[in-house]
């Protein structure tokens, strides 16, 4: 075991993993975190705690991770390269591990231009690839990036993102290969809507032997409305929403659109369970945490395995 986290145990045992996501509040509302966590408990193996997502200031990812941990859920602590230099990152990793955090997701981060402080100086001292390598070095060599020894090194299960849909498509699998070479243990992908493109991506990853070296969790976000689908297609960079998805949502009564979105997500999850190279699903039910129990049930991923 590299970290002994629940997520690592689930994946290592060969179970189909199911992870969720929780966005920290724009303030100090601990009850809001607990309320969202209550819907996820027992439904997911680990929950991603986002780090100032879309470059909007929120409660720190490590603090919300600790609240979630106290609520009996395993956090997957997200860290972006936008807001911290290598000193701050390493000290946060030490602190997070010390207080019980065992999974991390290493990300570049959305550009600060999108957020609520577009005047900010973006740090980007290191990039997501270099962050993966740094956490691995801390864990496996017991050394800081600067080379000095760490007393009681942090044992982190290292995650990263992959976007199979951003350009150039042919390069995406090579970028995945670089993340594997950097030392990533698991990958959570961008929200998948274009299944054909995703199948091609996974096939390439299988052919290159990458899926034997890294656990890939397929990203799923149920569409709540036609408007959401249109917005994601037109406005979210690197998102690929085929017209069939929009047409299918348009084809049902207005009151049934959200249900159809969940239906599509469940069909995807059923396919991922059978798809070689996919080790689980990462469900990003954005501000829809209360729907996770229903989605988990309908996707037939319950009960979640209990590991020792």
């Amino acid at each position, binding site marked *: 075991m590299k970290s002994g986290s629940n997520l690592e145990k689930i994946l290592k045992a060969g179970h189909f993993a199911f992870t969720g996501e929780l966005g920290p509040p724009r303030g100090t509302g601990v009850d809001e975190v607990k309320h969202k966590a209550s819907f996820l408990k027992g439904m997911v193996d680990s929950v991603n705690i986002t780090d100032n997502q879309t470059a909007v200031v929120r409660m720190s990812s490590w603090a919300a991770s600790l609240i979630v941990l106290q609520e009996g859920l395993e956090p997957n602590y997200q860290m972006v390269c936008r807001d911290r230099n290598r000193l701050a990152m390493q000290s946060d990793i030490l602190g997070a591990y010390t207080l019980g955090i065992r999974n991390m997701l290493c990300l*570049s981060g959305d550009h600060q231009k999108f957020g609520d402080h577009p005047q900010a100086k973006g740090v980007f001292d290191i*990039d*997501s690839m*270099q962050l993966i390598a740094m956490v691995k070095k801390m864990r496996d060599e017991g050394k800081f*990036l600067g080379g000095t020894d760490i007393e009681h090194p942090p044992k982190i299960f290292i995650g990263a*993102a992959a976007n199979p849909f*951003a*350009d150039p498509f042919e390069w995406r699998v090579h*970028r995945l290969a670089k993340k594997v*070479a950097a030392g990533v243990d698991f990958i959570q992908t961008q929200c998948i809507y274009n299944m054909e493109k995703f199948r091609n991506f996974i096939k390439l990853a299988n052919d290159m032997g990458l899926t034997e070296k890294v656990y890939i969790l397929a990203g799923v976000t149920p569409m709540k409305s036609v408007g959401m689908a249109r917005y994601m297609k037109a406005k979210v960079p690197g998102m690929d929403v085929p017209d069939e998805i929009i047409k299918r949502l348009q084809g049902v009564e207005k009151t049934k659109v959200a249900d159809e979105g969940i239906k599509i997500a469940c069909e995807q999850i059923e396919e991922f369970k059978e798809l070689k190279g996919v080790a689980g699903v990462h469900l990003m039910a954005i501000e829809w945490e209360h729907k996770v129990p229903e989605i988990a049930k309908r996707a037939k991923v319950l009960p979640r395995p209990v590991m020792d």
Partner: protein
Amino acid sequence: MIVAKRKPFEEIKHFLKGYKKVLNVGCGTCVAVCLAGGEKEVSVLNAELDMARKIDDNPIEISGITIERQCDREYLEVLDAKVGEYEALLSMACGAGIQFLAERYPNIPVFPAVDTTFIGVNQAVGWYEERCRSCSSCVLGQTGGICPVTLCAKGLYNGPCGGTNKGSCEIDSNQPCAWYMIYERLKGQGRLECILEITPANDWQNQTPRTVIQPGYSKPETAGK
């Protein structure tokens, strides 16, 4: 070259509020080429200042001189005999030139008339684009001659990130993705292997003031004066 743009007129006017006799020093190199601080720009700014101060009923005696380079001691020398006549100096050189001027005449206030913007190229007359952040550790050999430090909005060394959108950057659809361009160029040259290896964390060398002494040279005794 170093590209600059003139500061807003009101800001320049505010700097000079309390001075009645000012010398505006232009620079004949980079800022002249990018149409920000050469001879022509010195005379235009002086005419504007002269007129504005007359309207304010607070006339200013403003002269202009444009020297070859303000970042070179050899060319600053011609000012030695003149500056004593003035209460303040305005400089239209880049930030380096302004500082070198201020360093030479420490008893005279020196004000900037331009904002130094970047090291860039001349795409067309009056149109300049940034190309270099002078990071001190050039990676252009591996990146097909396209700088990710400057042209990637996140300065990624192992891009492209997941925000690449049909070849453009996530920050703006009019901004090409540097890593998309790097990929395309290296693919065309059959050199994609250049970016298959992980580039390790950068050794940032631009975090303290840098000095370069070329081989065979040493710091001159007269440095600083």
